[in-house]
């Protein structure tokens, strides 16, 4: 029983990282996507570089960098904030590419129709392009989100007690493999809830399709 309580506490840490990362990386990813599509060369180049950097290096390395390298230049962050910073920057880059593809999949005719109706670029984005984009990006976003649940386990290297680290500690202490099985079940429950949630979202945003 004590094991399960400990593991639920670990799940709390996992969920905390998961939700906070999601809350920050989704809007940041959208902003980065707009930056990437910006007609200002400097902005789009910078975003391209940022996305390349984040996708081109292991998330583990990014975590270690934020945790160990930043303090060397005088930036001291609490453990949790350091982890969240690395996760958010990494996931925002992936979301940015998904959103960019989504925005680009909307036909030119939609922009033109909005323009001839007198809508500003901002109105067109907010009312016409983004709502349609959401539908296209839901499946890949769902994918990334499920990845994030599992990637949260990487924070064990920052000595934070997430679900998997708690499980491993118990296993090593008690020579009992059950915590691994319990951890697997916990992860599966979390991803099942997400899968169900995204299915509902897809149905909602797909209602205008035949």
């Amino acid at each position: 029983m004590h094991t399960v309580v400990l593991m639920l506490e670990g799940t709390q840490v996992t969920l905390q990282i998961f939700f906070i990362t999601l809350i920050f990386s989704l809007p940041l990813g959208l902003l980065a996507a707009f930056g990437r599509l910006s007609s200002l060369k400097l902005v789009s180049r910078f975003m391209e570089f940022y996305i390349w950097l984040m996708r081109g290096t292991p998330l583990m390395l990014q975590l270690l960098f934020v945790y160990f390298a930043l303090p060397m230049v005088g930036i001291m962050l609490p453990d949790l904030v350091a982890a969240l910073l690395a996760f958010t920057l990494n996931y925002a880059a992936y979301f940015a590419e998904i959103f960019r593809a989504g925005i680009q999949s909307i036909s030119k005719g939609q922009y033109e129709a909005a323009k001839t109706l007198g809508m500003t670029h901002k109105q067109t984005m907010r009312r016409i392009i983004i709502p349609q984009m959401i539908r296209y990006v839901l499946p890949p976003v769902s994918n990334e989100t499920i990845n994030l649940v599992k990637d949260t386990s990487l924070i064990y290297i920052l000595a934070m007690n997430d679900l998997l680290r708690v499980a491993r500690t118990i296993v090593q202490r008690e020579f009992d493999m059950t915590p691994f099985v319990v951890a697997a079940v916990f992860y599966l429950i979390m991803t099942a809830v997400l899968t169900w949630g995204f299915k509902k979202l897809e149905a909602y945003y797909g209602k205008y399709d035949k």
Partner: protein
Amino acid sequence: MENMTNNDVMLRLTQIHKRFGDLEILKGINLELKKGEVMAVIGPSGSGKSTLLRCINRLEEIDSGKIEIKGRVLAQNNGENVAEYVSEKESRNILSCTGMVFQQFNLFPHMTVMQNLLEAPVQVQKRKKEEVIPEAEALLKKVGLLEKKDWYPSRLSGGQQQRVAIARALCMKPDIMLFDEPTSALDPELTGEVLKTMRELADEHMTMMVVTHEMNFAREAASHVVFVEGGVIVEEGPARQVIDNPQEERTQAFLKNML
């Protein structure tokens, strides 16, 4: 007297030049559209007629020339003979009296028919929804689609979608309607219903400019026909005169192929 006729000119194009890269699409177009006039623009594909229409509402920008809409200058040449546009905001303001219907309909697929009609009046003109709904319903009734008001566009036929697109443009109460090959993407049996809607609009003296391949429509519904080929206006005049009795050889050759 001079002033009065000036007020009647809804659209005036002067020496419009437009190029895409090395290719000059419009080579000095002059054109005038008067209030209540229905102008059909005909010509072979690639002649520049769609580009001409799209230049009017700034979907494309001209390289040189002058565009005036209801007496207000949208673009005109600077000292170096290069067209300069007014600001985005001013341009939106000037173009607010124009509406456009596209070949591909371009309805907003995530909105119902009614939401498509309400979107611009509510978001752009900041009108109250309750106030626009009766007008939108009247327009849908006019195009014969009131009972489809809560449907999403994907469930409508092409002809129905195009009629919604016309109603959506009309919901902004434009003074000039631009049609860019409105029936070209439709199955032949569906063009009739769209042309009928356009004919009714013409009968109500809406000022219209229609790029079309429908010679019968041009002949019967248009007051004026412009034949464009190779980026220039080859011939223009009263609809029946141009279509039944073209003067230019190139117009004759084109019409012979079309009819």
